[in-house]
């Protein structure tokens, strides 16, 4: 078994230090937590060490240096696979099948380094460091976080350690362990503001939804263990082992991989387990940037990419094509669905959350296509019958370009989306700050009644309905008091609000005087009466710093942030030559390539093509609503540039997204398990650029050539064009922006001035309502939970009370009855005892007599 204590293949010194990449952040976790407790409130700790932020930065920096060393070592000197496992965790003896011999299985931790590892390793460690820098500027300047930032940084470094560990691990077992560690940290960080019910709810939702996927992943891993007798990559990816398994039980292997894919669906927030990601935006913005855009959601993609050797092995030829289709179809569905929902979001971070889902779905579609190609093409040097493969060169290239496109999109998306989230964080931070500055005297919300109650009071007033009539009409079961669900139904029916459960809880709590969780007539009457009398005095100021409705015209006020956001958006849209362009076009082209082979793939292929235009629309909409036009409201007019800690990562990542062209020219689109096609392959830089321009779109047929231009047209012209005609506009008079915004803003003003059209009919349509309700997925999931799970739980509780507790209670009651009866015999009177003794003696004598005689 691998992991049994010896170094197997060690080629580089950097690999020897690889365990420290994940151990350093893991070490920082207790240090920050302990120091944070011990020095809480200390001035030096707060101002100089940034409540642990700088300690985390130091450890993450060291971790990044080691990662970079490893990456450079890998690219420069060696491009194959390395394995280093020199630590045995535990050894267990097992009974082997058949004969009763004891076989020993040892579980060790080792490092596995190949092209996928290296790419993810760079993304994770690089973004962790940048987001850590950002977090210092974001978290430590908000008074609400005072004296608890150490908790944030401790959980942050623990998360980084989990991500790096998952990437470096050399077995599916360790992958799963670190996967769960990330899940835990995600839960803790989403719930960082746990005093807010919505944050606590979102944390639970994220944890439980991903857990649904994880159960399947665990079952998949168990099946894989059953097939291979190990979960080490060295064993399961071994060519002979795959051959043996493919020969006996290829179908079972497909099931194992399919179940593992469900785990990836949960972690990467794909349909139908996508509901947690938008809610996860309750966490602080650095968390959204790190976990829910750049790293953790990529874990699912990493897992699917890891399965490549199964798909690519010739022994499995054609066996896994259906699974590849499922992967691509789930991706295509999510890509379009999430993009459509992003159309109607007003919350800046929610747009980005749906964009993340949509882009991850692109990568899934790309992986699905690549895995399909790897599984159905003969792309190895020799055919299964041993003869030389004539199509080797062409097919090999196709598979590697398809796989490389998906992986490169992962890279581009992580960089761009990490930056976009940080930029959105900077905007929110500054808008919030400006609001606080303008309205600091109104910030005490302590007397506020819930808005819905105010609306309800107005509604009753307008309709001349008394509280008593209203109460009778909503008390459906006539029980004399109403519960949360009846109340929710009534609020929906009177078109006041359709509130999620956590807000209903808060609302009920505001009215419920006796605290029994139900509302009766006096309570409701009292609350509404108080509000009616308050309506004359109080006025409510609900300011949402995340809503794009409160922004606009920020391009002149936050130039660096606006630039970063623009470049990130262009990268996500696939604007020619910028980052995402190279990979996104590759994914679209390769999905269509498969569609020409297998008509089923027309579905994902159409989805990704359509999604390109939708991406162009919603990303442009977001940028224009935030940065172009006139400021909506006085808050947006008083925003200031952000601080240096936040600017540094934005600046760095802007260049990374712009530099997509350099990376593509270096051959990163071929970032695939093959040294021949690897980096800088015999073209040089300029040659590489021209080669990529020619080949990245899989241009072997004219069809793909035309397709590419269609994709560019709808992604970079139609989608953004629609947004330009609807949103934004020129900046106000006297506002000056950086010169590179001039063409964008001028184009915006020109298109909007000339082609502006009224979209209010569309915005008011039923479909738009459905979209802003997230297509009712949460609603139906909640209902399914209430109707099925809650009903089942009630039955289970009944069974527990009647059967299990019932048995125990019957035994107890019977023995008590018997003892009561027996106790009556002890009268306490000595004469009775004598009588009993006499009768007993007589009986004994009689007995002995009988026996003897």
């Amino acid at each position, binding site marked *: 078994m691998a992991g049994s204590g010896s170094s197997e293949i060690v080629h580089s010194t950097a690999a020897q230090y690889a365990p420290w990449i994940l151990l350093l952040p893991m070490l920082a976790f207790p240090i920050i937590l302990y120091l944070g407790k011990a020095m809480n409130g200390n001035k030096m700790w707060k101002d100089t060490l940034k409540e642990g932020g700088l300690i985390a930065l130091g450890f993450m920096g060291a971790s990044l240096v080691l990662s970079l060393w490893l990456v450079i070592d890998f690219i420069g000197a060696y491009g194959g696979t390395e394995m280093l496992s020199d630590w045995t965790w535990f050894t267990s003896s097992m009974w082997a099948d058949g004969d009763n011999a004891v076989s020993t299985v040892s579980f060790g931790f080792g490092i596995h380094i190949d092209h996928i590892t290296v790419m993810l390793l760079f993304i994770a460690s690089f973004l962790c460091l940048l987001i850590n820098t950002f977090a210092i500027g974001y978290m430590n300047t908000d008074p609400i976080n005072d004296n608890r930032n150490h908790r944030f940084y401790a959980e942050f470094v623990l998360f980084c350690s989990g991500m790096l560990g998952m990437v470096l691990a050399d077995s599916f077992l360790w992958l799963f362990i670190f996967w769960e560690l990330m899940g835990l940290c995600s839960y803790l960080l989403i719930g960082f503001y746990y005093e807010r019910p919505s944050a606590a709810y979102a944390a639970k939702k994220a944890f439980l939804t991903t857990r649904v996927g994880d159960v399947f992943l665990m079952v998949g891993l168990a099946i894989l263990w059953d097939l291979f007798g190990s979960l080490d990559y060295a064993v399961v990816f071994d060519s002979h082992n795959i051959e043996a398994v493919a020969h006996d039980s290829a179908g079972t292997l497909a099931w194992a991989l399919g179940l593992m894919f469900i785990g990836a669906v949960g972690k990467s927030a794909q349909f139908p387990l996508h509901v947690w990601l938008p809610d996860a935006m309750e966490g602080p913005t650095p968390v959204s940037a790190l976990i829910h855009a750049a790293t953790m959601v990529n874990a699912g993609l990493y897992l699917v990419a890891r399965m490549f050797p199964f798909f690519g092995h010739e022994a499995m030829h054609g066996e896994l094509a259906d699974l590849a289709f499922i992967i691509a179809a789930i991706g295509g569905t999510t890509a379009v669905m999430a993009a459509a929902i992003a159309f109607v979001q007003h919350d800046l971070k929610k747009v980005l959350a749906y964009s993340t889902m949509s882009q991850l779905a692109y990568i899934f579609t790309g992986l699905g296509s690549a895995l399909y190609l790897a599984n159905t093409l003969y792309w190895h040097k020799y055919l299964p019958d041993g003869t030389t493969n004539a199509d080797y060169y062409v097919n090999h290239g196709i598979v590697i370009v398809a796989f490389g496109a998906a992986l490169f999109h992962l890279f581009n998306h992580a960089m761009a989306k990490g930056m976009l989230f940080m930029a959105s964080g900077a905007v929110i931070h500054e808008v919030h700050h400006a609001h606080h500055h303008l309205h600091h005297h109104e910030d005490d919300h302590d007397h506020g009644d819930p808005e819905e109650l105010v609306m309800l009071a107005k509604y009753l007033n307008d309709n001349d309905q008394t509280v008593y009539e209203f109460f009778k009409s909503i008390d459906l079961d006539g029980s004399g008091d109403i519960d949360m669900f009846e109340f929710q139904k009534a609020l929906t029916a009177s078109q006041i609000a359709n509130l999620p459960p956590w807000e209903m809880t808060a609302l009920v709590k505001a009215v419920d005087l006796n605290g029994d969780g139900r509302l009766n007539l006096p309570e409701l009457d009292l609350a509404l009466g108080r509000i009616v009398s308050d309506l004359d005095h109080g006025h409510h100021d609900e300011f949402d710093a995340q809503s794009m409705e409160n922004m606009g015209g920020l391009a002149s006020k936050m130039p660096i942030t606006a630039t970063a956001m623009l470049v990130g958006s262009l990268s996500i849209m696939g604007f020619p030559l910028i980052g995402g362009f190279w990979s996104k076009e590759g994914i679209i082209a390769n999905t269509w390539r498969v569609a020409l082979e297998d008509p089923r793939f027309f579905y994902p292929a159409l989805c990704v093509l359509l999604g390109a235009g939708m991406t162009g629309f919603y990303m442009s909409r977001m940028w224009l609503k935030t940065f172009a036009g006139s400021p909506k409201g006085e808050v947006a007019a008083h925003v200031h540039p952000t601080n240096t800690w936040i600017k540094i990562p934005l600046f760095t990542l802007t260049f990374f997204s712009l530099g997509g062209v350099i990376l593509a020219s270096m051959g990163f689109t071929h970032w695939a398990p093959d040294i021949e096609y690897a980096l800088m392959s015999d073209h040089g830089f300029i040659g590489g650029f021209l080669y990529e321009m020619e080949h990245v779109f899989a241009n072997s047929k004219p069809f793909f050539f035309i397709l590419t231009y269609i994709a560019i047209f709808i992604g970079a012209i139609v989608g953004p064009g629609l947004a330009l005609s609807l949103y934004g506009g020129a900046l106000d008079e006297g506002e000056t922006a950086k010169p590179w915004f001039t063409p964008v803003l001028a184009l915006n003003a020109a298109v909007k001035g000339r082609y502006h059209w009224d979209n209010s009919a569309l915005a008011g349509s039923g479909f738009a309502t459905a979209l802003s309700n997230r297509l009712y997925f949460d609603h139906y999931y909640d209902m399914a939970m209430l109707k099925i799970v809650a009903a089942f739980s009630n039955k289970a509780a009944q069974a527990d009370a009647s059967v299990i507790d019932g048995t125990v209670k019957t035994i107890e009651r019977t023995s008590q009855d018997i003892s009561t009866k027996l106790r009556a015999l*002890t*009268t*306490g*009177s000595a*004469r009775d005892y*004598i009588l009993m003794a006499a009768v007993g003696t007589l009986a004994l004598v009689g007995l002995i007599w009988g026996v003897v005689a």
Partner: protein
Amino acid sequence: MIDPAWVSGLSALLFVIGLAGAFTRKNAIIVLMCIELMLNAANMQFAAAAVHHGDTTGWVYTIFAIAIAASEVAIGLAIFLAMYGQHESITLDDVNVLKN
């Protein structure tokens, strides 16, 4: 010589009278007397058996039993005095602290 069967019969009769008295009477002193009666029934049986077999062991037992009975009466009367101190009565029906 009297037939030993008669003596045994008398002894059994005395014993049953004592037993019945011990069951039925409420006064503790009478119950004690009945217990003495049962002891003496046993003594009589011992004595009769000793004469019949010409063996002195029976006499020895009888003497021991009488000595024990004497000390028992002393203890019994002491108990009754203590009982009277607590319950203001020596009626056995009033003494049922062991009930249930």
